[in-house]
């Protein structure tokens, strides 16, 4: 993933001729020719109530999110529960229809496609879920689970499918004799490998990894992560990694977007984000990381006294949605809504303390 940097930069040099005409060229976050281009994406859920289930409000689960995923990179969306990161991932994978905004995959806007037109796109974007016990059908054998995408897309003969399934199992380091087993005969890590194999069946370009290791035991997590990294290198996959684990993103992500209540609070490349976090929310997240070894202590910010929990997303605070919990909040924070402001190369943050957002790159 980190090693992919050279590839990415060469790719962008190759297409640099277009840079002038590209209207996003001024914004370093919005790369030319990305594999995924998300613009002002919104996903609102109506809250219904009363006798006739009339709409009484809405939850802005994803509220105007823009970012790009470059080819072969790992873009991590980090945030706590209720921040909208899972909804974002599922909306991008078009498991949900967005309320507004665009999702461009390989230059095609897929945000408003119907199920029929989506089918070819489904081959390109696959999701790996958090809990393989739930994401694998307990009544199907491993071979049928991994072959399902081939059957659905009517690819190959029976023998070809079976060969493909075998090679996929090998690719994720599972023995071939798992073919005839059911998911409950496998351990958690093995099941997650099956889920990864299924996601790879159709040779996708982009994988949405929704907390791919947090349901697994620690000693198993490491190997699954190593496998994902290896697959990314070998198959030139792009990853959208959705996680709450900052230590993990530091080690495997190229760039990170920190989300809070449906919006990005800060976006930066991974090294930069950990070296100089600009947003108070990021600071709090970093300071709360439970470190294991003493040597890690110096790599995170000073201890910050943290207050409260993520508020109810259906009734977010006024102004900056983080202000009630913020250790740096000023009076203006409760009334003025900050926008994303450039705070460095390939780095922006949403906070009033950065000054007014005249040169805002917010999209």
């Amino acid at each position, binding site marked *: 993933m980190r090693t992919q940097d050279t590839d990415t930069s060469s790719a962008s040099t190759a297409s640099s001729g277009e840079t002038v005409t590209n209207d996003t060229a001024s914004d370093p976050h919005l790369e030319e020719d990305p594999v995924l281009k998300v613009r002002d994406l919104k996903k609102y859920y109506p809250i219904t109530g009363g006798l006739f289930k009339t709409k009484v409000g809405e939850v802005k689960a994803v509220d105007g999110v823009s970012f790009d995923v470059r080819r072969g990179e790992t873009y991590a969306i980090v945030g706590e529960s209720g921040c909208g990161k899972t909804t974002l991932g599922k909306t991008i994978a078009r498991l949900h229809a967005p309320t507004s905004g665009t999702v461009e995959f390989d230059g095609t806007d897929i945000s408003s496609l119907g199920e029929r037109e989506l089918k070819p796109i489904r081959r390109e974007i696959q999701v790996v879920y958090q809990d393989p016990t739930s994401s694998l*059908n307990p009544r199907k054998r491993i071979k049928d689970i991994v072959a399902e995408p081939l059957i*659905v897309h009517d690819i190959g003969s029976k023998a070809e499918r079976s060969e493909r399934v075998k090679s996929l199992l090998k690719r994720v380091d599972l023995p071939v004799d798992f073919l*005839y087993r059911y998911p409950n005969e496998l351990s958690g890590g093995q099941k997650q490998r099956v889920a990864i194999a299924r996601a790879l069946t*159709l040779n996708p370009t982009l994988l949405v990894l929704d907390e791919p290791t947090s349901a697994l035991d620690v000693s198993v997590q490491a190997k699954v992560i190593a496998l994902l990294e290896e697959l990314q290198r070998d198959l030139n996959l792009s990853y959208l990694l959705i996680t709450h684990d900052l230590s993990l993103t530091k080690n495997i992500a190229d760039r990170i977007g920190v989300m809070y209540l449906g919006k990005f609070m800060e976006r930066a490349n991974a090294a930069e984000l950990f070296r100089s976090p600009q947003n108070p929310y990021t600071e709090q997240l970093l300071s709360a990381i439970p470190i294991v070894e003493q040597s890690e202590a110096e790599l995170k910010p000073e201890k910050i006294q943290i207050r409260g929990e993520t508020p109810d997303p259906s009734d977010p605070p006024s102004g900056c949605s983080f202000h009630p919990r913020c250790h740096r909040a000023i009076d203006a924070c409760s009334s003025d809504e900050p926008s994303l402001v450039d705070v460095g190369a390939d780095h922006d943050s949403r906070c009033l303390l950065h000054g007014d957002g005249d040169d805002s790159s917010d999209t």
Partner: protein
Amino acid sequence: MGTLTSENRSEAMENRIESAKRIAYRFRQNPLSLAGLAIILGLVFIAVFAPYIARHPQDAGYMGEPAVDFANRFAEPSWEHPFGTDQAGRDILSRVIFGTRYSLVLGVFVLTFAIGIGVPVGLVAGYVGGALGTLLMRITDVFLSVPPLVLALAVAVPLQPSLRNAMIAIAIVWWPWYARLVYGEVVSVREEQFVEASRGIGASRIRIMFREILPNVLAPITVKFSLDMGYAILIGAGLGFLGLGAQPPTPEWGTMISEGRVYLPAQWWYSTFPGLAIFIAVLGFNLLGDGLRDVFDVEVK
């Protein structure tokens, strides 16, 4: 690779056998369900081999009309006629034995029909939802709001009284129960991530319903099938008793009780033994169903 695969297959077979043993172990934990299984197997055996078991198959209408032997009418239970004879001198034991056939066929037909209608309705209502789902479930609720026997009567009365029409009437009463059961299960399975994963692959709704969701709701359907066999037999006998089912001299249990009723209490054996047969059959299916419920660990009303 070929040999390797067959080895895998045999290992997989061993796994299957192992899990079958596990199920047998859990089933054995409850001796009553074993008793239920024994009763059902016994009934099936009797039904299949009725002509060989019954001493007077012709009395039950085997190979022709039921024979009559007025000289022997209302014989008390004896070695020759352990359950006695009826008003036409026919051996009641033989007739009860043949009655097993009618009851089992009725149960299987009714439930197959009920499952055939109810399961797809429940699947569609549960997975597709929306206006269609609401409509289907409201129709289901209308059926469910009337007591089953009353509804079966209402359907059976305008039809010609016969075993076939009784089966149709009961089947029409029965499917909503399966629709409701499947609907409830589907609504919970629908939220599982493998359903979403399948959608993410691009699978069609039909495929998701029948290939992903249906296999996960088979267990409660199986349990309900077993529990319902008893009730279906009971209601079939009820219709027969009321004269809306099989017509005399068909050796159907309910019909026989109805016929014997007028000779109570003097010729007590006429009604008692078919009644006992119903009792045993219903008990057997219920015990088996309870056992299956424990094995599959499902909740079925």
